[in-house]
Protein backbone atom coordinates (compact mmCIF):
# COMPACT_ATOMS: atom_id res chain seq x y z
CA UNK A 1 0.00 0.00 0.00
CA UNK A 2 3.04 2.27 0.24
CA UNK A 3 2.80 2.95 -3.49
CA UNK A 4 -0.59 4.60 -2.95
CA UNK A 5 1.09 7.06 -0.57
CA UNK A 6 3.50 7.99 -3.36
CA UNK A 7 0.63 8.52 -5.80
CA UNK A 8 -1.29 10.60 -3.29
CA UNK A 9 1.73 12.81 -2.57
CA UNK A 10 2.22 13.14 -6.33
CA UNK A 11 -1.43 14.15 -6.80
CA UNK A 12 -1.15 16.91 -4.20
CA UNK A 13 2.20 18.16 -5.53
CA UNK A 14 0.90 17.99 -9.10
CA UNK A 15 -2.29 19.88 -8.30
CA UNK A 16 -0.56 22.52 -6.15
CA UNK A 17 2.09 23.19 -8.77
CA UNK A 18 -0.07 22.65 -11.85
CA UNK A 19 0.89 26.05 -13.27
CA UNK A 20 4.63 25.38 -12.97
CA UNK A 21 6.32 24.55 -16.24
CA UNK A 22 8.70 22.11 -14.61
CA UNK A 23 5.84 19.64 -14.16
CA UNK A 24 5.34 19.40 -17.90
CA UNK A 25 8.65 17.54 -17.84
CA UNK A 26 6.95 14.71 -15.93
CA UNK A 27 5.15 13.75 -19.11
CA UNK A 28 8.57 13.11 -20.61
CA UNK A 29 10.26 11.45 -17.64
CA UNK A 30 7.36 9.09 -16.93
CA UNK A 31 7.57 7.14 -20.21
CA UNK A 32 11.34 6.99 -19.68
CA UNK A 33 10.92 5.55 -16.19
CA UNK A 34 8.40 3.02 -17.48
CA UNK A 35 10.84 2.03 -20.22
CA UNK A 36 13.65 1.47 -17.71
CA UNK A 37 11.38 -0.74 -15.61
CA UNK A 38 10.05 -2.66 -18.60
CA UNK A 39 13.58 -3.24 -19.84
CA UNK A 40 14.44 -4.60 -16.39
CA UNK A 41 11.35 -6.82 -16.47
CA UNK A 42 12.40 -7.98 -19.94
CA UNK A 43 15.85 -8.94 -18.67
CA UNK A 44 14.26 -10.94 -15.82
CA UNK A 45 11.95 -12.73 -18.27
CA UNK A 46 14.64 -13.32 -20.91
CA UNK A 47 17.07 -14.59 -18.30
CA UNK A 48 14.50 -17.07 -17.03
CA UNK A 49 14.60 -20.03 -19.40
CA UNK A 50 11.72 -21.81 -17.67
CA UNK A 51 9.46 -18.79 -18.13
CA UNK A 52 10.56 -18.19 -21.71
CA UNK A 53 9.92 -21.84 -22.59
CA UNK A 54 6.34 -21.52 -21.35
CA UNK A 55 5.54 -18.21 -23.02
CA UNK A 56 2.82 -19.82 -25.16
CA UNK A 57 1.17 -21.17 -22.05
CA UNK A 58 1.09 -17.68 -20.50
CA UNK A 59 -0.06 -16.27 -23.81
CA UNK A 60 -3.34 -18.15 -23.86
CA UNK A 61 -4.04 -17.44 -20.19
CA UNK A 62 -3.48 -13.76 -20.96
CA UNK A 63 -5.77 -14.05 -23.98
CA UNK A 64 -8.59 -15.57 -21.91
CA UNK A 65 -8.20 -12.90 -19.22
CA UNK A 66 -8.20 -10.05 -21.72
CA UNK A 67 -11.29 -11.32 -23.53
CA UNK A 68 -13.08 -11.84 -20.21
CA UNK A 69 -12.24 -8.30 -19.10
CA UNK A 70 -13.42 -6.83 -22.39
CA UNK A 71 -16.63 -8.86 -22.45
CA UNK A 72 -17.45 -7.95 -18.85
CA UNK A 73 -16.89 -4.24 -19.26
CA UNK A 74 -18.85 -4.11 -22.52
CA UNK A 75 -21.75 -6.06 -21.01
CA UNK A 76 -22.03 -3.76 -17.99
CA UNK A 77 -21.70 -0.71 -20.22
CA UNK A 78 -24.60 -1.93 -22.37
CA UNK A 79 -26.72 -2.14 -19.23
CA UNK A 80 -25.64 1.33 -18.05
CA UNK A 81 -26.21 2.79 -21.54
CA UNK A 82 -29.71 1.42 -21.87
CA UNK A 83 -30.74 2.43 -18.34
CA UNK A 84 -29.15 5.84 -17.90
CA UNK A 85 -28.04 7.21 -21.26
CA UNK A 86 -31.18 6.61 -23.32
CA UNK A 87 -31.83 10.27 -23.96
CA UNK A 88 -28.46 11.02 -25.48
CA UNK A 89 -29.19 11.13 -29.18
CA UNK A 90 -28.14 8.14 -31.22
CA UNK A 91 -26.52 6.33 -28.32
CA UNK A 92 -26.86 3.15 -30.37
CA UNK A 93 -25.67 2.64 -33.90
CA UNK A 94 -28.97 0.99 -34.70
CA UNK A 95 -27.89 -1.54 -37.31
CA UNK A 96 -28.27 -4.46 -34.93
CA UNK A 97 -30.60 -4.82 -31.89
Amino acid at each position, binding site marked *: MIILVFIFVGLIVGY*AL*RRANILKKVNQTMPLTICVMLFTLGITVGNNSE*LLGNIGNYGWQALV*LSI*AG*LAGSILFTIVVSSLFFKNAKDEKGGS*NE
Partner: protein
Amino acid sequence: MSNLLVPGVFAAGCLAGLTLNVLDVSIPDLHGISIYILYALMLQVGISIGSSDNCSQILRTMRPKHLLIPLATVIGTLSFSAVVGLMLSKWSIADCLAVGSGMGYYSLSSILIVQLKSPSMGLQLATELGTIALLANIFRELFALMSAPWLRRHFGKLAPISAAGVTSVDVALPTIMRISGSEMVPIAIFHGLLIDMSVPFFISLFCSIS
Protein backbone atom coordinates in the same frame (compact mmCIF):
# COMPACT_ATOMS: atom_id res chain seq x y z
CA MET B 1 3.73 6.69 -25.23
CA SER B 2 4.04 5.25 -28.68
CA ASN B 3 2.25 1.99 -29.31
CA LEU B 4 5.25 -0.01 -30.41
CA LEU B 5 7.79 1.45 -28.00
CA VAL B 6 6.61 -0.43 -24.92
CA PRO B 7 6.50 -3.95 -26.40
CA GLY B 8 9.77 -3.08 -28.20
CA VAL B 9 11.58 -2.11 -25.00
CA PHE B 10 10.25 -5.21 -23.27
CA ALA B 11 11.40 -7.40 -26.18
CA ALA B 12 14.83 -5.74 -26.14
CA GLY B 13 15.05 -6.50 -22.41
CA CYS B 14 14.09 -10.12 -23.07
CA LEU B 15 16.79 -10.36 -25.72
CA ALA B 16 19.36 -8.83 -23.36
CA GLY B 17 18.36 -11.25 -20.60
CA LEU B 18 18.52 -14.19 -22.99
CA THR B 19 21.96 -13.14 -24.23
CA LEU B 20 23.24 -12.82 -20.65
CA ASN B 21 21.82 -16.27 -19.93
CA VAL B 22 23.52 -17.82 -22.96
CA LEU B 23 26.82 -16.10 -22.08
CA ASP B 24 26.34 -17.40 -18.55
CA VAL B 25 26.71 -13.93 -17.03
CA SER B 26 24.84 -13.62 -13.75
CA ILE B 27 22.59 -10.58 -13.46
CA PRO B 28 22.63 -8.36 -10.35
CA ASP B 29 19.68 -8.09 -8.01
CA LEU B 30 17.39 -6.09 -10.28
CA HIS B 31 14.43 -6.50 -7.97
CA GLY B 32 16.04 -4.51 -5.16
CA ILE B 33 16.88 -1.60 -7.44
CA SER B 34 13.61 -1.53 -9.33
CA ILE B 35 11.46 -1.05 -6.24
CA TYR B 36 12.93 2.45 -5.86
CA ILE B 37 12.35 3.20 -9.53
CA LEU B 38 8.77 2.08 -8.95
CA TYR B 39 8.32 4.58 -6.10
CA ALA B 40 9.65 7.33 -8.35
CA LEU B 41 7.23 6.18 -11.06
CA MET B 42 4.23 6.25 -8.70
CA LEU B 43 5.13 9.80 -7.68
CA GLN B 44 5.20 10.79 -11.35
CA VAL B 45 1.86 9.08 -12.04
CA GLY B 46 0.33 11.17 -9.25
CA ILE B 47 1.95 14.40 -10.45
CA SER B 48 0.83 13.88 -14.04
CA ILE B 49 -2.79 13.25 -13.03
CA GLY B 50 -2.83 16.11 -10.53
CA SER B 51 -1.34 18.65 -12.90
CA SER B 52 -3.15 17.69 -16.11
CA ASP B 53 -4.56 20.84 -17.75
CA ASN B 54 -7.98 19.58 -18.67
CA CYS B 55 -8.53 17.73 -15.38
CA SER B 56 -10.60 20.31 -13.49
CA GLN B 57 -12.19 21.64 -16.68
CA ILE B 58 -13.56 18.24 -17.63
CA LEU B 59 -14.62 17.42 -14.09
CA ARG B 60 -16.91 20.46 -14.20
CA THR B 61 -18.81 19.24 -17.27
CA MET B 62 -19.38 15.77 -15.82
CA ARG B 63 -22.55 14.85 -14.00
CA PRO B 64 -22.84 12.13 -11.31
CA LYS B 65 -24.38 9.65 -13.74
CA HIS B 66 -21.20 9.74 -15.79
CA LEU B 67 -19.49 7.95 -12.90
CA LEU B 68 -21.53 4.90 -13.90
CA ILE B 69 -19.42 4.38 -17.03
CA PRO B 70 -16.04 3.82 -15.31
CA LEU B 71 -17.93 1.91 -12.64
CA ALA B 72 -19.37 -0.42 -15.30
CA THR B 73 -15.89 -0.91 -16.77
CA VAL B 74 -14.41 -1.78 -13.37
CA ILE B 75 -17.25 -4.05 -12.21
CA GLY B 76 -17.48 -5.78 -15.59
CA THR B 77 -13.75 -6.38 -15.91
CA LEU B 78 -13.31 -7.57 -12.35
CA SER B 79 -16.35 -9.85 -12.21
CA PHE B 80 -15.40 -11.60 -15.45
CA SER B 81 -11.74 -11.84 -14.40
CA ALA B 82 -12.90 -13.52 -11.19
CA VAL B 83 -14.79 -16.11 -13.25
CA VAL B 84 -11.58 -16.85 -15.19
CA GLY B 85 -9.84 -17.10 -11.81
CA LEU B 86 -12.17 -19.97 -10.94
CA MET B 87 -11.11 -21.81 -14.10
CA LEU B 88 -7.33 -21.29 -14.01
CA SER B 89 -6.11 -23.70 -11.36
CA LYS B 90 -2.61 -22.25 -11.17
CA TRP B 91 -3.74 -18.80 -10.06
CA SER B 92 -6.04 -17.68 -7.29
CA ILE B 93 -9.06 -15.48 -7.98
CA ALA B 94 -7.19 -12.53 -6.44
CA ASP B 95 -4.26 -13.13 -8.83
CA CYS B 96 -6.58 -12.98 -11.83
CA LEU B 97 -8.31 -9.92 -10.40
CA ALA B 98 -4.90 -8.23 -10.13
CA VAL B 99 -4.23 -8.99 -13.82
CA GLY B 100 -7.71 -7.75 -14.80
CA SER B 101 -7.23 -4.57 -12.71
CA GLY B 102 -4.64 -3.46 -15.25
CA MET B 103 -7.56 -2.35 -17.50
CA GLY B 104 -5.19 -2.04 -20.42
CA TYR B 105 -2.41 -0.31 -18.47
CA TYR B 106 0.09 -3.04 -19.33
CA SER B 107 3.35 -1.32 -18.42
CA LEU B 108 2.31 -0.32 -14.93
CA SER B 109 0.26 -3.40 -14.11
CA SER B 110 2.99 -5.90 -14.99
CA ILE B 111 5.65 -3.99 -13.04
CA LEU B 112 3.40 -3.57 -10.01
CA ILE B 113 2.38 -7.22 -9.93
CA VAL B 114 5.98 -8.46 -10.08
CA GLN B 115 7.01 -6.09 -7.29
CA LEU B 116 4.03 -6.65 -5.03
CA LYS B 117 3.66 -10.40 -5.48
CA SER B 118 7.28 -11.53 -5.23
CA PRO B 119 7.48 -11.27 -1.41
CA SER B 120 4.52 -13.65 -1.03
CA MET B 121 4.74 -16.02 -4.04
CA GLY B 122 8.44 -15.75 -4.91
CA LEU B 123 10.12 -13.99 -7.82
CA GLN B 124 9.56 -16.88 -10.26
CA LEU B 125 5.76 -17.03 -9.92
CA ALA B 126 5.47 -13.26 -9.58
CA THR B 127 7.38 -12.78 -12.85
CA GLU B 128 5.07 -15.31 -14.53
CA LEU B 129 1.98 -13.47 -13.32
CA GLY B 130 3.54 -10.16 -14.33
CA THR B 131 4.17 -11.52 -17.82
CA ILE B 132 0.54 -12.63 -18.06
CA ALA B 133 -0.54 -9.16 -16.93
CA LEU B 134 1.67 -7.55 -19.58
CA LEU B 135 0.29 -9.74 -22.36
CA ALA B 136 -3.34 -9.64 -21.20
CA ASN B 137 -3.34 -5.85 -21.03
CA ILE B 138 -1.54 -5.45 -24.37
CA PHE B 139 -4.22 -7.72 -25.90
CA ARG B 140 -6.92 -5.62 -24.28
CA GLU B 141 -5.58 -2.42 -25.79
CA LEU B 142 -5.15 -4.03 -29.21
CA PHE B 143 -8.64 -5.56 -29.22
CA ALA B 144 -10.20 -2.34 -27.98
CA LEU B 145 -8.57 -0.37 -30.81
CA MET B 146 -9.36 -2.92 -33.50
CA SER B 147 -12.95 -3.61 -32.46
CA ALA B 148 -13.95 0.02 -31.77
CA PRO B 149 -16.02 0.48 -34.98
CA TRP B 150 -17.75 -2.87 -34.44
CA LEU B 151 -18.46 -2.14 -30.77
CA ARG B 152 -19.88 1.27 -31.68
CA ARG B 153 -22.20 -0.24 -34.28
CA HIS B 154 -23.60 -2.99 -32.11
CA PHE B 155 -23.35 -1.78 -28.54
CA GLY B 156 -23.46 2.02 -28.68
CA LYS B 157 -21.11 4.97 -28.32
CA LEU B 158 -20.01 4.12 -24.80
CA ALA B 159 -18.81 0.58 -25.59
CA PRO B 160 -15.52 1.63 -27.27
CA ILE B 161 -14.74 3.86 -24.25
CA SER B 162 -15.36 1.08 -21.76
CA ALA B 163 -13.45 -1.48 -23.81
CA ALA B 164 -10.43 0.83 -24.00
CA GLY B 165 -10.17 0.90 -20.21
CA VAL B 166 -7.44 3.25 -19.06
CA THR B 167 -6.35 3.94 -22.65
CA SER B 168 -9.56 5.91 -23.31
CA VAL B 169 -7.61 8.93 -22.00
CA ASP B 170 -4.56 8.54 -24.26
CA VAL B 171 -3.84 5.83 -26.84
CA ALA B 172 -7.45 5.08 -27.75
CA LEU B 173 -8.74 8.67 -27.52
CA PRO B 174 -8.23 9.57 -31.20
CA THR B 175 -10.03 6.38 -32.25
CA ILE B 176 -12.90 7.04 -29.82
CA MET B 177 -13.23 10.59 -31.13
CA ARG B 178 -13.47 9.32 -34.70
CA ILE B 179 -15.81 6.40 -33.98
CA SER B 180 -18.07 7.68 -31.19
CA GLY B 181 -17.92 11.39 -32.02
CA SER B 182 -16.13 14.37 -30.48
CA GLU B 183 -18.92 14.92 -27.93
CA MET B 184 -17.79 11.68 -26.29
CA VAL B 185 -14.24 12.99 -25.71
CA PRO B 186 -14.87 14.53 -22.24
CA ILE B 187 -16.53 11.28 -21.13
CA ALA B 188 -13.61 9.26 -22.51
CA ILE B 189 -11.06 11.44 -20.70
CA PHE B 190 -13.06 11.36 -17.46
CA HIS B 191 -13.38 7.58 -17.76
CA GLY B 192 -9.66 7.11 -18.49
CA LEU B 193 -8.52 9.37 -15.65
CA LEU B 194 -10.67 7.59 -13.07
CA ILE B 195 -9.61 4.14 -14.29
CA ASP B 196 -6.00 5.37 -14.29
CA MET B 197 -6.29 6.19 -10.60
CA SER B 198 -8.04 2.91 -9.85
CA VAL B 199 -5.32 0.70 -11.39
CA PRO B 200 -2.64 1.01 -8.65
CA PHE B 201 -5.35 0.88 -6.00
CA PHE B 202 -6.96 -2.36 -7.20
CA ILE B 203 -3.66 -4.04 -8.04
CA SER B 204 -2.20 -3.40 -4.61
CA LEU B 205 -5.49 -4.46 -3.04
CA PHE B 206 -5.66 -7.79 -4.90
CA CYS B 207 -1.93 -8.43 -4.52
CA SER B 208 -2.29 -8.14 -0.75
CA ILE B 209 -4.81 -11.00 -0.77
CA SER B 210 -2.96 -14.27 -1.13
